[in-house]
């Protein structure tokens, strides 16, 4: 609780740092914040081209909606997740100057990284509306409007909770051992392909499939597609366990981070 109170006292710093992260990402760039849209869009085009033109994997991609939409619906939350984590991995080391010269609750740095990622996420989510309307009008697929859309904030909250928890652990670990960043950049690639972001995960009951089923990102990404495009509530079992996992990760990550934080300045 005292941790939360302290963060609240430093909320101005949190906004300033998040705002700085957003600002410097698009400084000296012609397209500026448009990149928040262009990145997932171009990724969508790349994966659409690869899976439906370069190699014909359409039979494996039995996804109940136009593939570009499927890919975009996976890529937007995934990019949010991955960008936040990569912000977090570097946040302490990149701000060494602040960590060693100024006092503030260290949690502010990973939190600012997540907020900065969230801004991009909201922009990209806006484009989703345009994309949905487009495929609704042209694609032989019809969007089902449903009340389930009100569940979207909950899905986002669960994802953010998990992101903060993992992000804090990564930030702390990378401060002590820089290897973490290298491992992270490989691991996040693998994680993407087992999270039903651009290809559905196997459900054939094999060992691999069972392992993949424990991945909390599968129900979270699935929940985005359920509440936005399919107009249905997410499957409760997997989603609830992902939510519980997220809360545990947040509590564990935050506790470890806070305990180690008084050694950051001398170990960085």
């Amino acid at each position, binding site marked *: 609780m005292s941790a939360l109170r302290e963060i609240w006292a430093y909320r101005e710093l949190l906004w300033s*740092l998040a705002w*700085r992260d957003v600002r*410097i990402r698009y400084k000296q760039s012609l397209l500026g914040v448009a990149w928040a849209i262009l990145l997932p869009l171009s990724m969508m085009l790349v994966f659409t081209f690869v899976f439906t033109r370069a190699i014909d994997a359409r039979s494996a991609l039995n996804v109940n909606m136009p593939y570009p939409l499927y890919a975009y619906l996976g890529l937007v939350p995934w990019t949010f997740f991955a960008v936040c984590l990569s912000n977090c991995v570097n946040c302490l080391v990149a701000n060494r*100057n602040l960590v060693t*010269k100024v*006092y503030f609750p260290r949690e502010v740095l990973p939190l600012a990284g997540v907020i900065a990622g969230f801004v991009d996420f909201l922009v990209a989510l806006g484009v989703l509306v345009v994309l949905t309307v487009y495929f609704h009008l042209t694609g032989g697929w019809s969007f089902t409007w449903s009340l389930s859309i009100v569940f979207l904030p909950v899905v986002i909250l669960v994802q953010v909770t998990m992101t903060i928890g993992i992000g804090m652990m990564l930030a702390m670990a990378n401060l*002590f051992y820089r290897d973490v960043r290298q491992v992270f950049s490989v691991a996040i690639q693998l994680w993407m392909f087992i999270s039903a972001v651009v290809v559905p995960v196997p459900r054939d009951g094999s060992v691999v499939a069972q392992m993949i089923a424990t991945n909390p990102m599968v129900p979270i990404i699935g929940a985005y597609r359920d509440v936005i495009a399919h107009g249905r509530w997410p499957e409760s079992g997997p989603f609830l366990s992902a939510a519980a996992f997220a809360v545990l990760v947040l509590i564990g990550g935050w506790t470890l981070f806070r*305990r180690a934080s*008084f050694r950051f*300045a001398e170990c960085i």
Partner: protein
Amino acid sequence: MMTGSAISVSNVSKRFRLGETHDSLRDLLASWGARLFRRPDAVAQTTVDTSRSLQALHDVTFDVPRGDALGIIGPNGAGKSTMLKMLSGILRPDEGRIMVHGRLAALIEVGAGFHGDLTGRENIFLNGAILGMSRAEIRRKLDEIAAFAGLERFLDTPVKRYSSGMYARLGFSIAAHVDPDILLVDEVLSVGDAVFRLRCLERMRELLRGGTTLVFVTHDLDQMQSVCERALLLEGGRTAFLGPSRDAVSWYLQAMTRAFVDRPPDLLDGKHRYSGTVDILHVRFQEPSGREVRCARANQPLQVEVRYCLHRDIPRLVIELNMRAVVHQNLLSVNSGRDGLTIRGVKGDRRVALSLPSLAVAGGPYVWNVRMWDADSGRAEIDTPFQYPLVVDDEGCKTGVLCLPHQWLFDERPTMVDERSILQGAADPAAGRNGDRGTIAVAAGDEGHGDWDPVGPDYALSATRPRRPEHCSD
């Protein structure tokens, strides 16, 4: 406002590990295990390896009353910055307790957290937030901050295009407008030009008048004294002195002088040239009687004798002697050529001496060097490092650079008091007595000091009273 301590530090120690943080994966796992199952302070205890650690601070205790200014001085590596970082919360002490009451802002590095790609204005908001200001507060003070730094025209330029002086001025200016209850300042006034530095000092005094508590780490003893009434002198992580800043400074200078006499520092200044024609055999400092001294008295005559060996004839040899204060800059440079004199340098063992009627410098450690030129070729024959040490004991000029003979002129008979009672501001009942303590020569206006005569009974006091030397034992 509450009275009492703004900062209280009791028995604080801090140890740093040397080398890499963890030696092996086994260490890492052990300490992670410890961190999971024990309290954090217990971990600090278990992971310390005394043979490979540095005791940065050892059992330091002090107290800063609300609204006071405390200076922290000491040589490099004394633990000053570590202390400041612990006060601000960046580091945590291994032992002891630190209590801080009030909103604290620490200026440990100017412009920490500046981002080169952001403009001056954006960085003011960011850095202000880092120092604990709210956006509304920053918006209100924006013009003032820009004006103080003298950067109004550059607010919309990214700071990566700033000069280092502009960068530093902006950084200090933001910090100077924080208005905290407690301000910690670490050796940051060395930036900027003289005028800016004065403005910074003035700003610190202004904050002090407004009730801010100040802790000021600096190497500039004069600057420290001009702001702080009390000072903490750290040496090797221990408290060497805690008390009135004037006394702390004189303690520090004495300690420095002692260390200097024991082992003169090897101050190579990189310009050491040597042609092989001249060897300096010795440089001796002598009283007029010829007795050698290692410690000279200020305002007394001094003779500097240089014995050198010339390996070939140099018909017109020029000698220059330089004296440099260890804590200041080059103070004296006498050159026989500039005085229109050359030495008829004949091969062999020669001597030359410089006689000064009065060594009018403040007390402290000094170093000398010797240069010799061939006036015809312009070639430098020798240019030694500043390797000849001389300690000067002054007569009360505790600070400043010079110690000149001087006289006071008063239009009424002055009251004579004990020096220490003035310096410490103590209410000494013996002080203030219209004293005939017998040590100060009082001359009733007898020398004709211009228009002082007609005003009335004039008194002139010469600061000529003999004092017990502090550093000189010879």
